[in-house]
Each structure stands twice: as C-alpha cells, then as structure tokens.
C-alpha cells in the first residue's frame, strides 16, 4: 500500500542523506565550506520545526529568530556567567523558550485569523531591543563572547569538523523526529486543522491545543539550534536574531515547499549558502532575495521543489491525466443495480432492527439567535435509539443550525441538549466527538491536503491516543495503534466502495466519491449517533439510492442516524420518523406517510396548497 511506500521513500531519503552527510567533509577541498555546512545544519533544525508549524498547522510565525536568540543567549549566559554545564544549559534554555512560546501562543492561537503573525512579530522586535539594552547581562550590541564549546566526557567539540559531526547528527535526529510527527496521528490532525479547523474539531482534533503545542515545539527546536550556535561560534551577537532573520527562516520554509521537511532542508541549504557563493553579493543581496521570494510565491506557491516536481510530472505522465479530477460516470438511471460495486442486495439483506423507544438524543426548548435573527426558536424533539430520523424543512428553516447546535459548533442561548443521558450543550465539538457522535457537512468539508485514507483516519482521532511525544519517537505502542486505526479506516472505506482510492489525494476524488468519503470518515469511530447533513445533495438518482441503502446498513450495525435532507424520496423511503422544521421551530413530526399527507408541511414547502 502506498502509505508504507512513502514510509519507504522517507527511509530511502534518510539513508541517502546520511551517506551524503558522512561523505561531504571528505570530498571538501576548502575547509571554509565546512563552516557554511554547519550553519546550514543549525538552520535546518529551526526550519524543521517551522515547517511543521507553517506547513502542517498552517500558522505563520515571524518571531522564530527571537526563540533562536533566546536559546543562544540563555546557553551563553548560563555557561559563562553562572558556570552551568552546557548540556544542562541547553535543556534549560529550551524550557525557557518553550514557556515563552506557550505564553504567547495560548491567547493568540485560540482565535481565527492571523494574530500569531502579529504577535510573534511584536515579540521578536521587543526581544531584540531588550537583548541589546540589557548589556550588563547580555553584552549589549557588541555581543557576548567566550562561550565554551560543548563536550561529551573528554570529547570536546572545538573544531569545525567536530561540530559538523555534532550539528549534523542533531539535524538528522531533528529531521527524523519531524518526519515521524508529520506521518503520525498528530501530523494528520495538524494537516486536517490546517485544511478545515472547524471540521477537524468535529473529528475530535483539539485544534487550539494542537496549534499551541506545535508552536511551542517549533520554538524548542529553534532554541536548541540557538544553543548549538552559541557553543559553535563561542560568540553571540544580537544582529543574528532580528526580524530579518525571522523572515529569512520563513522564506526557507516557503522556498522548499511549505508542507515538506525535505523541502525545508533544501530551502535552508539554498538560502544559507547563497550569500557565501557570490562574494560581491552583499550589495545586491536584498534585491535578489526579495525578487526570488516574490517570483516563487507567484508561480509556485506550494514551494519551489514541489512546484518543479509538479511541472515535471505534468510533462512526464500523460498531459493533464495526473491531476485531473475523476468524473462521475454514472449518469444513467440504473435499475436496482448499484454503483461502484456496492451490492445493494447486501444492504437489504441485513435484518432491519426495530427502532427502540429509548431516547438517545433529546432537544429541549432550544433557542438560538444570531444578531437578532432567530435561527432556532423553542425547538423540541427526540431521536430514538437505533432509528433513522430525518429533519426536513424549507431553506432557512434551521436544519443545519440544529446540527451545529447539537455538535457544539454553536452554543444555544436557551434550552438543553441531552445525549445518552448527559447534558452536552456547552461542550466543544472535539469533546462531543469523543462521546460517540460523528457528522458530515452540508458544504462538504473533506481535508483536501491529505489522502483519502488519511481523511478517514482523522475521523478516528477521537478514539485514538498517540500524542506528540509518542508520535515523534514511534515506540512499538505507537505502531500498534496506527495499525489498528489504519485497518478500521480501510474497513470504513470499503463499506463505501472507496478502498481502491485509499492513497489518492482526497482532492482528486469526484464529487460523489467525496461525499462517500465524508460518510466513511463519520463511521470509522463507530459512533452511536451519526448526524448526516444533506448526504445526497448534488448526487444523481443512482448515487442517491446507493447512499440511502448504505445509511440503512449503518443503522443495522447499531448506530442511530439523524439525517438532514432535501431529497424527499430518500427521506420518505428510509426514515422511521420525520421531523419538519420551519422558521426554527418544529411544525410536525411523525412517520413518513403521516408527514406526506400533512397539509401544514405542504404549505410550508410550496407556499400554499396545490
């Protein structure tokens, strides 16, 4: 399967990198370039963390030079002024930096929008000024000299080549940790929240917490790099830690490809060596820098490397085939034969469970207004355990608002929502996901930056537990859970006939396939209650019939389904109960036949009677 292959590709890449790292100094004629290579290695450590932050979590920081600087200065001050052991100082520096990042990140990452950029920018400016001004502690603008080299026992790292070994070992470790994290449950969660924060929350990804953790982690990486820098050059100067360096760091991430750690390595190597390669460059450095940044962003915003690879791909494979969207080819109305190899007979052969009288979800007197407009108004209804209950009503009646209220996306102004005898109004979506609910979205919110299989695996986020540390280190317990989640995800995909598309990028699926993907994502955590928001909207008759059959099959496996739908045929043929909303309140409920004959419902839809 291709996921293991990309694991193999990564392993291959690491082997090649390791070989290159070992051979590089042997092939070198001018020892000066060793110094450049060392700086590249140090920058790479920062860039790995920053790539995960920007490319995966989707948050931009213009203040990483400050974290780098704090790491460097803390190490320098602790070892020189206070005589600490350099390794201990490195760890303490990382703790200090991490704490500062936590303080900055927690309030700013709670919100939508680009507040982190502003906050990190402001922080970097302040940090720089303070470092320069507190000259008794930091040595001021002329810098802080005399930082001792690192040592392990009697091995002192006091030459370029010795530091090369240390720096690149640590850079290598950093890359491994970064790659591990990116391919793990946490990495998927980060990419999901980058693609759609609200949807990721509904899958159980605690988006705000993850953003803060990633920010702190990236700051720690920068701090470690800073400590290495201090012990390498034995001298720390404030000039290295200004906002221009922060911009350079982000440029390295962007140039290499925002979602790619390998690209980050390239960006680091390219932009660090550039000024060294062209000696009379300094005059024109800014012009060149600015120019390539603008050009790369306009023409290949996904980054230089991915951009080149994509264009190469385009010419090597059949023109346009690779990136073309798959087209739904089921345009005729078939008989009861199914579409995409899902035997309809299967879905009907399972015994139809009688809906019990137990109430699994109770909506009691819910009211919600948005700026004076009442979206829900004293809304009350129940959902029986094991039933398929449909919520219908004209456009603007409040159906999707109801789903959002149940799922915690909105908080009701009045009333309570009870799920399995627990009050859930007021909980956050990621908490509700962990209680045994799942949902799909009216406007289709698949995560288009990851594969089909990964989308479904994110759906299992609420029932899995590998967190940041485990995801970086990959101990045996990590693999056990990953394997389990993968199997569940593949099973969910084959339920919807998508197992062959597992490794395709989700954005390449056709509309019908994407709708089925969303549903596979909703069932993987084996929820007790599934909320489906217009699951057949935009599908043709054949596909709608197939989905309808699958919904019944889902119910026969023990789940309860609450369905919002406009397609009346689907609603009437599979529902046990139909609840009709209009103007945010319930106007009728009953069996499908009762509702169809209900004059009130007719006039709500048609505006009168026929």
């Amino acid at each position, binding site marked *: 399967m291709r996921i293991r292959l990309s694991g193999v590709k990564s392993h291959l890449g690491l082997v090649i990198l390791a070989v290159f790292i070992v051979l590089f100094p042997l092939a070198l004629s001018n020892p000066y370039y060793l110094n450049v290579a060392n700086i590249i290695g140090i920058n790479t450590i920062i860039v790995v963390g920053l790539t995960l932050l920007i490319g995966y979590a989707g948050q931009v920081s213009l203040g990483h030079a400050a974290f780098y600087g704090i790491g460097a200065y803390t190490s320098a001050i602790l070892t020189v002024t206070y005589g600490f052991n350099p390794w201990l100082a490195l760890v303490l520096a990382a703790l200090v930096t991490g704490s500062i990042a936590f303080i900055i990140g927690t309030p700013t990452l709670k919100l*939508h929008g680009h507040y982190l950029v*502003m906050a990190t920018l402001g922080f970097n*400016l*302040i940090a720089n000024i303070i470092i320069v001004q507190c000259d008794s502690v930091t040595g001021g603008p002329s810098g802080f000299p005399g930082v001792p080299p690192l040592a392990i026992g009697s091995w002192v790292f006091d030459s370029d080549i010795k530091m090369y070994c240390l720096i690149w070992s640590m850079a290598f470790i950093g890359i491994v940790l970064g790659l591990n994290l990116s391919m793990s449950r946490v990495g998927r969660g980060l990419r999901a929240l980058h693609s759609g924060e609200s949807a990721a929350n509904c899958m159980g990804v605690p988006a705000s917490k993850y953003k803060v953790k990633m920010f702190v982690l990236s700051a720690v990486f920068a701090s470690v790099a800073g400590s290495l820098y201090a012990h390498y050059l034995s001298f720390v100067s404030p000039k290295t830690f200004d906002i221009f360096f922060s911009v350079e760091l982000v*440029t390295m991430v962007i140039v290499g490809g925002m979602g790619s750690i390998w690209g980050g390595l390239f960006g680091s190597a390219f932009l660090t060596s550039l000024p060294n390669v062209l000696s009379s460059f300094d005059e024109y450095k800014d*012009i060149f820098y600015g120019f390539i940044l603008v050009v790369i*962003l306009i023409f290949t915003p996904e980054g230089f490397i991915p951009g080149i690879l994509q264009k190469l791909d385009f010419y090597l494979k059949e023109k346009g085939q690779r990136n073309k969207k798959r087209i739904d080819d089921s345009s005729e109305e078939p008989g009861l034969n199914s579409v995409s190899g899902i035997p309809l007979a299967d879905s009907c052969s399972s015994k139809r469970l009688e809906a019990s009288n137990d109430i699994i979800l109770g909506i009691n007197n819910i009211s919600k207004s948005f700026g004076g407009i009442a979206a829900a108004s004293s809304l009350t209804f129940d959902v029986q355990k094991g039933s398929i209950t449909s919520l219908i009503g004209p456009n603007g009646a409040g159906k999707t608002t109801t789903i959002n209220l149940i799922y915690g996306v909105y908080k009701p102004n009045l009333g309570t929502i009870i799920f399995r005898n627990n009050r859930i109004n007021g909980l956050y979506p990621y908490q509700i996901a962990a209680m045994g609910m799942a949902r799909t979205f009216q406007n289709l919110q698949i995560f288009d930056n990851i594969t089909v299989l990964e989308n479904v695996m994110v759906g299992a986020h609420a029932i899995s537990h590998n967190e940041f540390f485990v995801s970086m280190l990959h101990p045996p317990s990590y693999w056990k859970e990953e394997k389990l989640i993968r199997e569940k995800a593949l099973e969910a995909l084959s339920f919807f006939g998508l197992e062959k598309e597992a490794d395709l990028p989700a954005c390449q699926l056709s509309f019908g396939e994407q709708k089925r993907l969303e549903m596979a994502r909703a069932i993987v955590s084996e929820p007790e209650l599934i909320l489906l928001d217009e699951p057949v909207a935009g599908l043709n008759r054949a596909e709608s019939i197939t989905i309808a059959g699958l919904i019944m099959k889902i119910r026969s496996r023990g789940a309860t389904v609450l369905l919002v739908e406009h397609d009346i045929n689907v609603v009437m043929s599979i529902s046990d109960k139909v609840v009709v909303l209009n103007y945010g309140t319930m106007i009728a409920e009953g069996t499908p036949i009762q509702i169809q004959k209900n004059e009130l419902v007719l006039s709500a839809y048609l505006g009168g009677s026929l």
Partner: protein
Amino acid sequence: MDHLAQFIVAGLTTGSIYALIALGFCVIHNATGIVNFAQGDFISLGGLVIFTLLMGLKIPLIIAFPLSVIAVTIVGALLERVAIRPARSRSIVILVFITIGASIFMRGVFKILWGKNQMGLPPFSGETPINFAGATLMPQNLWIFGITLISVIGLHFFFNRTRLGKAMRATACNPRAASLMGVNVNSMVLLSFALSGALGAIAGIIIVPITTLSFDIGVMLGLKGFAAAVLGGYGNSLGAVLGGLLLGVLESVGAGVISSTYKDVIAFGILLLVLFIKPSGLLGRGDTERL
C-alpha cells in the same frame, strides 16, 4: 507638568504619522484582506524622493511635495499590478509574504540608489519655536498636524462623498455584490494600493525634517503604524486615527516618564497586550466563533 505637555505634543506629532501609516494599512486591508508589509517602504520612498527633488534638483517644496506623492502612488500601483494581481487567487498568507518579498526588494533598490548614509531635510518653514500651553512647538509640528488633518479629512470626503470612494467601500464590504453593480474589483484593488502609497509618502515627507532620513527609515515607522492599526481595531479607519494618536502619546509619555531606552518596546508591548486581551482592538467588534 511642563514636561508632560511637551511629551504630549511630541506624542501627538509622531502619533499623527502613525495615524497616516495605520490608515494606509487600513485601506489595503479593507479592499483585499492583506497586510501590506511594504507600507513602510512607501514611507521611506516618500522621504527619499523629496530629498532628491529638493536637495538634488533644487525644485521648490510646493512642487516637490505633490510630485513625490505622485511618484510613490505610482510605485504603489505598480506593486499591485506586478506582484499582487498575478497572485490574487492565492491564499492571504502567500499574498502577505509577497508584500514582504516586495518590501525586501524595494529596500535593496533604495540602498543602491541612495546609499546607506543618513540624510537630512530642512523643516518646511524654519525653526522658530512657538510656545503653547507650556510646551514648545516647532513649525514643523504644525505642518505635521495640519497636513495629517487635511489628509484625514480628504480621505473621509473621498470615501463618503465621492462615487469612487463609495465603490471602494462597497468592494471592501462585498466584492461579488460590487461587481454585480458594475464595479471593476480589480481596479478598486489597484486604487487601494495607489492610495496607500500616497498616504505612506505623505507620512514620510512630513516627518523627515524632524528625524534623520535613511533608506530604511520607513521600516520601524511602518511596524509601529501597524501596531497602531491593531490597537485601534484593524480595518477600522477611525480606529486607525485614534490608535495612531494614542500610540504616539503613550510612547512619548512612557519614554519620558519611565525610560527612553525602551521607547520602541512600548509600541510593541502595547501591540502584544492588545492581541492578548482584545485582539479586535479599541473599536473593533469581537469574534464570535467558537473552536
């Protein structure tokens, strides 16, 4: 008390500049959602161009001033046309970084054309101090207050009384609906950059006589103007003006009363405080989405 009055005067002076810069950020943000990091370079360019016109070509101030503003306006429009328009479909983050790239590029060009030296411009109408309410004012301060006031009033008139200004507001509100009315949204975006350029140029020209001019004078000013915009409520024009004046005064009084070495920290410290406590700023509305 005398000192306080002096600090306030100084604060209102720099505050006026911050207000103009913040307005520049505001105009582009409202039209496009972008934070234009090249705003500071418009300021530098305004000062640099008028320096060349006044000192190099000996053109009288009354002609050099509008000429400089026009020059930077054209540069602003060029920036949009060349670097922003081709990438309009990209995400906001990409566009913001394009402005950062453009800013670095422009600064590199300025460095080559004008060198790294510090330059000076004489004040517009001499240096005879004026005493007012216990503070000493220089004529340049009056020029700054006056020109800022005229600019703000002019901008207000433009946005509220002219057809083009209203079209820009409509585009900021709802670009799709605006195009259904016949508004060419691309032209409005171009106009917003040109207008920002003009505002930046004015800010640069009027402040240079009381500070020193260098190729990167606009960088710090731009960042502080940005902090002022956030303080006032990012995207709100009245907020931009209020934020600018308030930031200038707070910075000046803080520097005078607490410590002058940490003067620059004050502006960015306020920025961080605002972001932590009320990110929508003084006049912005709160964000209601829950996560």
